[in-house]
């Protein structure tokens, strides 16, 4: 595999750092092209003491609109060699979960290809590298 290319998913181990700068919570990321942003159970960023930095309207599967509280969080995904601050859209989910939807805002820097038979996602920083590394 060449530099800047990764194979993973659809579930990815990830962590979010707490407001104290040292504690982290392990989460399961699910790559989801149907989500436009990163979506999480609101209880997770609240428990980590993360800062709420925005309110946004979300359109959910049935077309109805709900309000999300947006938090700034430092996300780490070792499988993608990723560590940076991201918007976490905290939503009032019915059941508490540690599963986080990694939507298109997360994928924006990458060229992403889904290999159906393998059930794997191929991430690359450039389409040339993706072709060179995986096909």
């Amino acid at each position, binding site marked *: 595999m060449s530099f800047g290319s990764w194979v993973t998913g659809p579930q990815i181990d990830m962590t979010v750092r707490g407001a104290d700068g040292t504690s982290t919570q392990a989460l399961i990321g699910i790559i*989801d092209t*149907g*989500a*436009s942003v990163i979506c999480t159970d609101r209880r997770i960023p609240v428990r980590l003491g993360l800062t709420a*930095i925005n*309110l*946004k309207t979300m359109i*959910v599967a049935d077309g109805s609109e709900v309000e999300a509280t947006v938090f700034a969080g430092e996300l780490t995904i070792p499988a993608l060699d990723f560590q940076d601050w991201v918007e976490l*859209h905290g939503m009032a989910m019915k059941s508490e979960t540690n599963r986080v*939807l990694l939507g298109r805002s997360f994928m924006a820097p990458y060229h992403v290809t889904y290999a159906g038979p393998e059930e794997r996602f191929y991430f690359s920083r450039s389409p040339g590298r993706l072709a060179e590394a995986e096909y």
Partner: protein
Amino acid sequence: MNAADLEREIRAYEAMLPELQKQHGAVWAVVAQEKLVRTFTAFADAARFVNAHHADGALIRHTNQHKETAPFVEICA
């Protein structure tokens, strides 16, 4: 920052948005105490700035913000 504080900052942001778009275009704006603090090209830079300089929190909103989509089927009202 609680919801009431965020709503106050959002009202201030919306009042300044036309001028903000005219002056800065598509950027991440940081608003605190109902004033524009700074703009950033990347969200991560804005988040790092707020984390380092605004312990009481601040609004971070993109000037082209729109409604987002999430394929949930079970959420609380």
